[in-house]
Every structure is written in C-alpha cells, then in structure tokens.
C-alpha cells in the first residue's frame, strides 16, 4: 500500500535514515527497508547507534559487535551487513586512522579523555557515530576512500535516534563545528554536513496512526525541512484493516447495528447469543469504529505533508526474521525503482 508521489525526489538516495517515536517499530522498519534494498541485488549496510542490539534481536542473530557482519544473504546476491556503531570504538578507530596512535590511545582512555569525548563533550558522540557512517559510505571495494572502484555498499540504512532527537542528531555536525573550531573533528564535520544535506541522504519517519506519534512526526518533518534536510517517506506501521464495511462502521458508531438480526445470525452460525455476548460485540464494534475514525483523521494529517506514505500491517504474531521479510516485500515498490537497480546504485557507480 503506497500513496503519494510515485517517483520521489529521493530515488537517488544512498543513506536512508530511519526515525520514529519510541514504540512505533523503528528498528523493524529499518530492517525491512534494508531487506527491500538488498532484494535488488544490492549490498546494504544496516547500522544502529543506540547500543540496544535491536538489529540482532530482529534478525535473531548473535549480538553485533563493532565489526561489519553479514546477517542476511538473499538469492540473487543481495546482502545485508549489520553494524552496531559504538562511540568509543569509533573514536579509537578514528584516532588510529588519523594519528596512528598506539600508546597515546591507551593513555587517553586511562585519563578519562575517551569518556570525556564520547559522553560529555557536547555533540562529539553524535559526530563520531555519524562519522563512522560517513566513512562506510565513502569506502570503495579496494579499501580506499576515493578513486574509481565501486563503493562497498550500494545503500546504508541507519536505525537512528527517535523523532524527538533526530533533527539535533543530524545537525550536530554544524553545532560541533562551532565549538571545536579546528582539528579533524571540525574539518570532518563540514564534509558530513554536506553529505547529510545532499540528496544522497533522506530521513524516513515511522509512525502509528495515533495522535502523539503523528504529532511528533509532523513536528519532525517541519524541523528537518527547516534544517535543510530531506524527509523521505512516511512509513505507517502496524496498520489494522477495518473488519466492518463503511456502512456497518457508521451504524456501529451510532449504536444502530440491528441487534435482533445479529442475534439471529450468531444463532445460525451455532454461537449461543447471550445478551453479554451480543452487547459486548456491539460495544467492541463501537470502539472499533471510533478507532477507525481517529486513524483516518491521522492519516489525512500525514497525507497533507505531501510525502509518499507506505502502510505496513500489524503482525499478529509479533516480529521475527520471517515477518520482517514480508514487510520488506511491501516496501519494495517504494524503495526499488527499476528491476536490478536499487536506489542509489546508478549514482554510486557513475
């Protein structure tokens, strides 16, 4: 189920940032997007930055470490590689890369300087997390970060911080550039900001059709736009189909479903139609009708943003690696634009 523009401006995106209010299924959707991209023979990196091990739980694989680990290989050659980015490891790797630090790295750790940089120094933590993604995005198959070799990854999906913090998380580089005016962090901050503000980066928002998540989604979209970032798609998660048609919903809402005939039908089907059952069913129908009304109002608010919207069904048995693949299939039309050409491949190989 997809509505909205069919050829979104983010068709060339390489970095898919996925955010959402807590409890909306952000990690599940990020995983499904990675699988959808990989289904077109792409090599996709799926990353998380909050130390929750959500990816390993979703795919039912051992906890991810700081090495890139293949978690899914699809027929046809596509694959998803998982990575849990951890700020301390990212900083040490970074110091090694720029300074070839041996003993000094340990000293920094001993004096609490690493803790300082990764937990207290404002924004540095987020810069390190995004910096690692920036590095992976530029890495070529020959191990270099420039040149003509094709990139290692055709797409990167980031299971990002929740909607309340996403704007700040993605704009932290400009903030840090103000504080740390020199040094590699400052100079890298500039390149990262350019990547995040380019059309290579889109931010997808996961929501439920409930008031608070929708409100936060709308606020996040406004915030992202104001910061020069590109909102991508809205993914409405855990959608339940109405179990009654519109006429019946209308009657249920008004309490006008015809009780005697319902009672008769229940009897025909061999169900003992006690008053508790019939009255209870009608009450449930009224709750259901009100819930559907609310969902439709919320969907209309999301549609007014003009962004493409994909709807994913509620999974009755909860999330597992099989059901994530089902969700991925539903996302393919939105994320894969031509057979064999995942979003971003063309540009990446150009």
């Amino acid at each position, binding site marked *: 189920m997809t509505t909205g523009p069919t050829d979104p401006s983010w068709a060339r995106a390489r970095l898919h940032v996925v955010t959402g209010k807590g409890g909306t299924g952000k990690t599940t959707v990020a995983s499904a997007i990675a699988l959808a991209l990989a289904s077109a023979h792409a090599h996709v990196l799926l990353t998380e930055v909050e130390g929750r091990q959500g990816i390993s739980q979703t795919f039912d694989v051992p906890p991810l470490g700081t090495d890139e680990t293949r978690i899914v290989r699809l027929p046809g050659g596509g694959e998803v590689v998982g990575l849990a980015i951890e700020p301390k490891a990212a900083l040490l790797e970074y110091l090694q890369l720029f300074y070839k630090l041996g003993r000094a790295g340990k*000293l*920094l750790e001993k004096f609490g300087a690493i803790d300082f940089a990764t937990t207290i120094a404002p924004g540095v933590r987020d810069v390190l997390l995004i910096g690692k993604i920036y590095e992976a995005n530029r890495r070529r198959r020959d191990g270099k970060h420039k040149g003509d070799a094709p990139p290692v990854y055709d797409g990167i999906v980031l299971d990002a911080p929740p909607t309340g913090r996403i704007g700040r998380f993605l704009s932290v580089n400009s903030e840090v550039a103000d504080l740390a005016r*020199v040094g590699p*962090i400052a100079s890298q901050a500039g390149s990262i900001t350019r990547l995040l503000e380019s059309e290579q980066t889109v931010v997808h928002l996961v929501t439920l059709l409930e*008031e608070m998540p929708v409100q936060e989604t709308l606020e996040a979209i406004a915030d992202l736009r104001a910061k020069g970032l590109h909102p991508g798609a809205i993914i409405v998660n855990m959608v339940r189909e109405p179990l009654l048609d519109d006429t019946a919903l209308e009657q249920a809402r008004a309490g006008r479903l015809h009780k005697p005939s319902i009672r008769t039908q229940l009897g025909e*089907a061999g169900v003992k139609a006690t008053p508790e059952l019939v009255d209870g069913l009608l009450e449930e129908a009224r709750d259901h009708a009100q819930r559907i009304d609310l969902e439709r109002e919320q969907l209309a608010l999301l549609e007014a943003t003009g962004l493409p919207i994909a709807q994913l069904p509620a999974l009755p048995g909860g999330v597992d690696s099989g059901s994530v693949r089902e969700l991925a299939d539903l996302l393919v039309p939105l994320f894969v634009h031509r057979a064999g050409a995942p979003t971003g491949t063309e540009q990446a190989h150009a």
Partner: protein
Amino acid sequence: MSPGPVSTKAPLLNIDALIDDPATQIVVCCGSGGVGKTTTAAALGLRAAESGRKVVVLTIDPARRLAQSLGLTELDNTPRPVTDIDTAAGGSLHAMMLDMKRTFDEVVIAHSEPGKAEQILANPFYQAVSSSFAGTQEYMAMEKLGQLKASAGTEDAPWDLIVVDTPPSRSALDFLDAPNRLGSFLDGRFIRLLTAPAKAGGRAGLKVFGVGVQIVTSTMTKILGGQMLSDVQTFVNALDTMFGGFRERADETYRLLSEDGTAFLVVAAPERDALREASYFVDRLEADGMPLAGLVVNRIGRVSATGVTPSRALAAAESLEESGGPKSASNAAGLLRLHASLVRTAERQRELADRFSRSHPGIPVAHVPALGRDVHDLDGLREIGHALAGS
C-alpha cells in the same frame, strides 16, 4: 521438578493506598519512551489531589494536549495551580513543565556572584552542556525535584506530595545513571587534569600527573581544538568554586530517592521491549535499595464481549461468510472476527505481562486499559486515575 504452569498471579498494585498514605511524599514514574509515563504521572497527581493530598506534578516533556488538560500553556519552569479540580476533600494540584536550561541557569545564578554568573552563562561550553548534553535533562529533573522538596509546605508551595515524570530517554536506566555520570565526570580525573594548571598556577600543576599528560592534552587539543578545551577549563573552574563539587549534589539527590517516603512506579506498555526495559529497571532499583511500589502496564487491549473463544468466533465467522446470507450475516461475521482479534491481542499482552511477573514475583501490578483517544481534559485524566486504582 516439572516445568509445569506456575501461578503467575501478581499482587494488585493498590494505588489509592499509596497516594492516600501521608508518608508517601515523592512518586517517581519511570519507564522507557512512549509508554505513557507523563499521562500516568498527571493522572496519579489529579487522583491524589482530588482525594485530599496537596500535590505538585513535575512533567518533563508533555504532549501539547496533555499540558493543556492541566492548564499549562507554556514551559515556564514554575508550578502553576491547576484549577477546575474537585477540592471537596481539601486537596490541591500544581503542575509544571521542566525547562532544563532555565533550571541550570537558575542554579548558576543562585550559587555564584553576579559577575561570575554572567561569565559562566556566556561560556559556549556551558551553553552546549546546559541545552544538549544527554544527561542534563535527567540531572536537572533531579535538581528540580530537590528544589520542590525543599520548598514543600510553604505558603507558595503548599504541596505534601510530589509526582515526578522522568525524561524520555532511550533507556529507563538513564534517569538513575545520567546525574551520577555527569557528577563523576565533573569530579573525575580528566577534569582535574584540565583544571590543574589553573589551580596550581600554570604548568607546574601538570607534574602531578606525570609524563603521559602532555600527550593527552596535546592530542585532545589536536582533536577538539584548543578553544574548546579552554572553554571547558573556564567552565569547570567556575562551577567548582561555585558549588564545591557536582558529585556531592548528584549524590544528595540520589539519596533523596532512596529515602522512605519515595515510591517508584515503573510504567510499561504491554510489549516485549517496554517490558524488558521495565525488568532492567526493577532489577536496578532492587540492587540500589530504592523503594519500588509496583508496575503499571498501560494500554491493555479492551475486550467487552464474553462467552465465545477466538477460534470458535473465527469458525463461526467463516461459516457466516460462506453462507452468503444477508448483510446482517457479513456484519455478524465482522463482529466475530473483530472480537477474535481483540481477545488474541489481549491474551498476548497478558502473556507478556505474566512473563514479567514470573521473573519478578511479588511485584504489585496495575493494568490500565487502552483509551480510544489521547487524554485532552481533566475527565480523561480522571478516567485513567480510576483505571490505575483498579476501580
């Protein structure tokens, strides 16, 4: 011993006994993001006020409608009386939203000389820490709680019960950990290293730490830039003379939370992740000897009809659909399918809640049914308070 079914009957959480007990002075609502902590805190505060307590509710980041339902129109960091509540039992209700930057600024202003305060407030490192450091909100929530407690019982602050909502953090544990992290950092080795030169009068101070220091500071200067480090030095020196150690202050607020008179309510949604967070949190409270009142499981699916199992309902729905009967047949089938899915959802949620209770036997639990709409008036909060109390 066979792994047969275990009794999972968790004791019921008696909310009214908790809030009616005058010995209860602080209730902290905690849990992971998106589980309805703020709404629970507000509902609890209202119920306590209408049963005669003098209550102040400290909210962190309320949804706009919830704030409006309490009559809060702006984030002004000051408790405001909530009007339109039932005061027949002699209670009162104040509510406020935490403004973490303003709280931090007030601490600075209250504890330093005017000239120095301005210098701190203008420091770029201070500005960043006070508005965006990941632990600042938690720290300032504790700071504000300390202030509300200290002023309790005065004319402008009539409250005898403080209900606290906690910041919407990634992990429920952040609320307990962040203040200490900020405190121990500001008191830690690296900061002493940074501030040593200034205290000991120049570079002589560095000798205390030996040879490694040069490498550390020069590397940090290379990475972060000298300006940032010197901003940090100024900031930390200023704070240090100001309150004699952040650590002490963090410890003090932490102590307040483990005293008699404080009760933690862990809030969760009936979902795997939220209940797992709740588990971590409960274990942590026990390990730290913090008083846990119980678990609130929010938004349990509502089932109204009785007398038919989900599988029976689905079979009947199928036979009605196959019969090709009148419109009422397909309506009845829809009702049966709806009922089956509601029961299945409720069963799954109950199983998740039971799993929590099996691994944490004896912890009282309250179940709150899902409401059709978000709360946007006092009646909505009353309804939740009612459900919390199990009535």
